[in-house]
């Protein structure tokens, strides 16, 4: 009792102080909070809002003989009739449908392993799998180019031991897609595993104990306790990975340059080519806005699906 009273005293003693403090803030002009927000607002306007608006305006223009001309929706109608844009969309879609599920399942498996008491030097493994995400684009490109080199690459060297002939990893339309999927999986799986691992910490131990008492096998505990517990993290990673894959640029840029024969041309690559290779900034901006709309629609559908199920 005594301790309780004592501990509550400071709180009650402070109470009358609090309003006085608030009153003292009256001395500040009304604008104060906005001034505090100013750096963020300035940065947002300068580096986000302005580019958004500027790109939208660009998407309605075209360059004729060095003069920027208003073109209305011309870039968008051209986009609808552009077979390469559909090719890029299809490639992106295929990579999305194949890579994201593989990566997320792997990430869950890894997270379970990271969480297991059976695993020795757990923090080492967690770090080791997380490291790829901090690797710079160029280093990453050089590494995988070397690994996937048809004649001198390490992967084909390993493959030769099991008696297979060398695979043209980056030179064949199908294998180039496979290479992109492998590289992406290597790059991002660890990050997703860490997100799952964090979510696992919030699943109560008593749930596992109860399941154990009820005689659930390890598999049943995973299926009925761990997976439902991971649900929020899965929703998050599915949506983030979908958005990330739709914007895919890094891997095709450093590994295949969108080739061979456009087999790894993604929407991001196509946008880049139109802007910086063909100097068609209006068209590139239109591609950017089309992609934004597609991402918006898909994300909404995903959110809707997940909500209905829960």
């Amino acid at each position, binding site marked *: 009792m005594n301790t309780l009273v004592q501990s509550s005293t400071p709180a009650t003693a402070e109470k009358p102080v609090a309003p006085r403090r608030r009153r003292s803030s009256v001395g500040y002009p009304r604008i104060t909070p906005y001034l505090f927000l100013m750096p963020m607002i*300035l*940065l947002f306007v300068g580096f986000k809002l302005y580019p958004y608006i500027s790109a939208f305006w660009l998407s309605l223009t075209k360059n004729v003989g060095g003069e920027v001309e208003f073109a209305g929706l011309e870039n968008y109608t051209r986009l609808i009739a552009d077979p*390469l844009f559909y090719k890029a969309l299809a490639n992106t879609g295929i990579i999305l449908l194949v890579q994201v599920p593989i990566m997320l399942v792997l990430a869950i498996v890894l997270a379970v392993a990271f969480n297991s008491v059976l695993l020795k030097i757990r923090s080492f493994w967690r770090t080791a799998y997380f490291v790829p995400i901090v690797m710079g684009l160029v280093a990453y490109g050089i590494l995988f180019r070397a690994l996937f080199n048809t004649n001198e690459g390490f992967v084909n060297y390993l493959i030769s031991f099991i008696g297979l002939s060398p695979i043209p990893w980056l*030179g064949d*339309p199908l294998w180039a897609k496979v290479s992109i999927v492998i590289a992406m999986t290597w790059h991002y799986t660890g990050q997703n595993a860490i997100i799952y691992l964090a979510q696992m910490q919030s699943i109560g131990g008593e749930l596992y104990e109860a399941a154990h008492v009820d005689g659930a096998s390890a598999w049943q505990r995973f299926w009925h306790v761990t997976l439902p517990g991971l649900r929020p993290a899965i929703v998050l990673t599915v949506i983030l990975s979908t958005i990330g894959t739709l914007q895919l640029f890094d891997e095709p840029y450093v590994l295949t340059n969108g*080739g061979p024969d456009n087999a790894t041309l993604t929407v991001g690559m196509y946008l880049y080519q139109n802007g910086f*290779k063909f*100097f068609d900034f209006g068209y590139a901006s239109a591609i950017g806005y089309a992609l934004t709309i597609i991402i918006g629609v898909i994300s909404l559908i995903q959110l809707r699906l997940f909500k209905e199920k829960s």
Partner: protein
Amino acid sequence: MKFSTPMPGRRAVLTSFAAATVVALVGCSTQTGQSAAKGEIGGKITVWTWNAPGSGLKAAIPAFQKLHPGVEVDVQDVGNPAIWEKITTGMAAGGSGLADILNIGIDYMGNYSEKFPKQLVDLRDLGADKLATQFPAGAWKSGQGPKGQVFGVPYEVNAAGFFFRQDLFKEAGIDYSGLKTWDELLAAGTTLKEKTGASLFSMDKAGTVGDSAGLFELLMGLQGAFYFNAAGDITLNGPEAVQSLEIIKKANDLGLVEDVPGSWENLLVTLRGERKVATTSSGGWLAGVIEEEAPDMAGKWSVSLPPAVKTGGLTGAVNGGTYLSIPSSSKNQATAYAFIDFALGTLEGQKLVYDGGGMFPGFKPMLDSDGFVAPNAFFGGEKVNQIFIDELNQDTPAVNYTSDYARALKAYVDVQTRVVLKGADPKTELDEAAKQVAQQTGRKLATN
């Protein structure tokens, strides 16, 4: 608690406000060369270029400074191809952040001058028209705008360099000098492959690293054709293009084309003879690279006029080139032009630049100068430069790159990949690609 008195609070707000403003503005502010008074030569200029051409320009600085004491010239190796993106973004941003002199490739010249005509200085205003007659007409024309503006002074003027491994041909018992046409060359290539195991060509078949269209452009050039004709209409599916791709397909089907990703390192492997590839075609500038990078190959590489596609046809082709240009945003245009004029428009400057970087010049007095066509011991006593001059003296048409070269190039490389990797039909694929380029650019297909 944090702000006991109003003053520090306000100060903190102002400080962070100021800091944010600084951060926001630093990204935009740029400083090119120190400006001298208008029209006067002085101060500092910067030059954007890349490795070898950079070494050439650097070699001309001391002599330039003797003429104009106190002038500073900063030659920056921006890297190729990074330089194109850097120039593009600079021009798209209204010229912000560009150097005072830009080294621009002929393949980008049309694009920059058509898309950003106000961003490049018309060098006639600075006196460049005096130089016009000193350079080959074709090279000069490709640096001009549609209204006769002079956007660049030719720095490199490259003839196609057709390099071959004398030792390998000798080993196979083939008399290389007897090969006059591509048909004969391919036939010899088959023998060469059987006897020595060497491939006749190397190519990045998937086109994922380099653009891999070098061989095609050479074959097109030997027929006086390109992706576009002089009117800017698309000739990507013309008879010359089909013929060129048929030759490549035939070589590939005969197993004479080695698949080598198109990186610089891979080129060096070939040049050093560590990969058995018997010919390498490129710009004439490659001669200097071979000498420097593959000293052990002395006497093994040689260079010749490229074979003709048809008996009696052209045996010379233009293989690109570069220009020095001044962006309108430069604050020190007079000094920038003075440097260009010295380095490219005088024999003294040209000699220094050539000795320093080895880029093949277009300046006629330089080509005629003593010793320029001296026999080259490295290439078995061949008069290397004479071969290039002979090529440029043939009736090769001016190449019209237009502003859509990059699109046509990409469309072609995709076609070539389908042909050499999947055995697609050249004519069908080229027709398809030409239509695609027309749809993208609004250009007409040339009527053959």
